[in-house]
């Protein structure tokens, strides 16, 4: 088990810098999720920690050892790849045992570890099959088994669930979480799926364009997003944004609506309101021209435009709601549920 420290990490390909001074400290046994849209550098970051990509600048520590120059094999890590990366010519047992064999462990020890891992992952019946005879979910388990038997200090996951169907993905997500808790191994998990990120991570590192936008617990990210990007990325359905002006704490929307905030700021802002934070209220200040409803059963998404403007707005109402399209619905919103970001930089303005 080990903690991981990233110090001022830079990656460039020639003149193009793809990771800009990434820093972070991951505690021993923590489950860290690196999340961001495709091309944000999250896989590159993971591969740098694994030792599959060179480090252009900065330092990586695993435990108290600087590992920049170490071969992947010497970093005491195990990695689960997106496409499983099982050796197609080896049986499940051989796949899991390969790394141990290379480390010259005694045969009985190898067998014991493989059997144990197979037990945990419920793949005992498939040990003598080839990967091509397995389903996607089973292959995923074998890939995890290969990581577990190594008993490494760190698990690295590179979008391991993206090739599975939706139902299996939810199931495997829970299993990975349970397994990590049980083994207590520090884990870094890369994904572009914010739901996966929120449910799995002890802490989330949100990457965008090679910059760390925010690093914190899922709830911190949800409650106090540090930027417009994080606010829009975390939470489903996504947060509503609109340009607004705030003057001594009074927020004026483009259509003239005035909302009260709990600050005394004056600035040009981007205002963020989560769909689930508005409350239907006949005396509410927000007026929405309804265009359509999405009935999800447990709740209903109301799509529309703010009155007298073209600003699209989504509200999430509990239970079943149905009104004629075109009706005007009124909502109120608590001042503390308003997120204010600098109109230019997109950074959060702290109330």
């Amino acid at each position: 088990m080990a903690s991981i420290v990233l110090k001022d990490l830079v990656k460039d390909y020639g003149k193009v810098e793809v990771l800009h001074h990434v820093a972070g400290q991951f505690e021993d046994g923590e489950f860290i999720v690196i999340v961001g849209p495709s091309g944000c550098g999250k896989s590159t970051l993971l591969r740098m920690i694994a030792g599959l990509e060179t480090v252009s600048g900065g330092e990586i520590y695993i435990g108290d050892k600087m590992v920049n120059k170490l071969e992947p094999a010497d970093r005491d890590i195990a990695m689960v790849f997106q496409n499983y990366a099982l050796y197609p010519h080896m049986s499940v047992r051989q796949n899991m045992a390969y790394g141990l064999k290379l480390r010259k462990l005694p045969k009985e020890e190898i067998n014991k570890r493989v059997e144990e891992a197979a037990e945990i992952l419920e793949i005992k019946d498939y040990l003598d099959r080839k990967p091509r005879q397995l389903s996607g979910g089973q292959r995923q388990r074998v890939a995890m088994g290969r990581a577990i038997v190594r008993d490494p200090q760190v698990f690295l996951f590179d979008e391991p669930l993206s090739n599975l169907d939706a139902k299996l993905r939810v199931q495997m997500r829970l299993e990975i979480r349970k397994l990590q808790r049980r083994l207590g191994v520090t884990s870094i998990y890369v994904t572009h799926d914010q739901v996966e990120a929120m449910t799995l991570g002890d802490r989330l590192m949100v990457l965008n364009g090679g910059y760390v936008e925010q690093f914190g617990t899922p709830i911190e990210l949800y409650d106090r997003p540090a930027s417009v990007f994080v606010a829009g990325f975390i939470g489903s359905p996504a947060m509503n944004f609109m340009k607004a002006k705030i003057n001594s704490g009074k927020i004026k929307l483009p259509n003239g609506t005035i909302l009260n905030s709990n600050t005394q700021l004056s600035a040009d802002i981007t205002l963020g309101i989560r769909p689930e934070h508005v409350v239907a209220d006949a005396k509410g200040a927000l007026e929405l021209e309804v265009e359509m409803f999405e009935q999800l059963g447990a709740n209903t998404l109301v799509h529309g435009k703010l009155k007298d403007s073209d600003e699209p707005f989504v509200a999430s109402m509990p239970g079943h709601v149905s009104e004629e399209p075109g009706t005007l619905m009124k909502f109120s919103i608590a001042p503390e549920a308003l997120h204010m970001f600098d109109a230019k930089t997109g950074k959060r303005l702290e109330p």
Partner: protein
Amino acid sequence: MLDQVLNALLTVVIGVGVCVLYFWGANWVLDRLLGSDEQTSANDGLRTKIRPWIFLFPALFFLSLYLIYPVFATMWLSLNGASGENFVGLANFIWAIQDGNFLQSVYNNLLWLIIVPIGATVFGLIVAVMADRLWWGNIAKSLIFMPMAISFVGASVIWKFVYDYRSGESEQIGILNAIVNGLGMEPQVWLQIPFWNNVFLMVILIWIQTGFAMVILSAALRGIPEETLEAARIDGANDLQIFFSIMIPQIFGTIIVVWTTITIVVLKVFDIVLAMTNGQWDTQVLANLMFDWLTRGVDFGRSSTIALVIMIAVLPIMIWNIREVNKEEGTR
């Protein structure tokens, strides 16, 4: 000249025309006979059964005429004497296993069989692996592939110059002897050194076939998922271990295909030996021996016997090769 061009064009037009006429016409006749009036499902079934045979017929006919019939004719000839008229039973085969030249050829063919496929496959594999790691790899690959475009006889002419020997005081123009001279050693008559002259001839075929092996293996190597190599690195494998226990097993099917394909080429080797030594100095091979008995010996019986021996040797490898190719393409 113009006449010949026109003739060729005419032949092409007539050939294609006859083909079109046959396929279209036969199809039309079939539809006429079993179509329109009684649109029963039985008729439909019959038509679907007959149609493939109509389209296959020309190919099957010419295959039988030019391939199957000669095989049986050869078998019959091998049981006959020199003129192909008087039946002699197995006398030709008995002659063969006692003939020094024949045994020499079998021995040489075995040498070719072992050395050339292994040489070409191993070199091809090495080049395929290395070329991906060097910036000039692609240039090297094109150069190595080029001999594939040269005919065996052409290649032999080139290599004749490589091995050339001038006696007495005349200047050595063979590149090999030039090098040997330059190193201050005695020039050699390369093509007359026992045993090694065989190897020198094999080098020519390896030189030609390495390009083939390289291209096929290079494609196969690119088909290996990069992630399996990375997983192996994380598992702690070094470059050699990755090569032998992760890469080779994944392209093993392709290696077999390459190896058997070259083996078949080797079994038929003829032009190189004919052009370089014509089987002198113990370099005879079966195909050249057959040709020799046909043209100089004018013995249909013996040459047919040798031809049969070659065919019997090629068959099992051919079958294996086709199976592996099918497996590779996933048709099974």
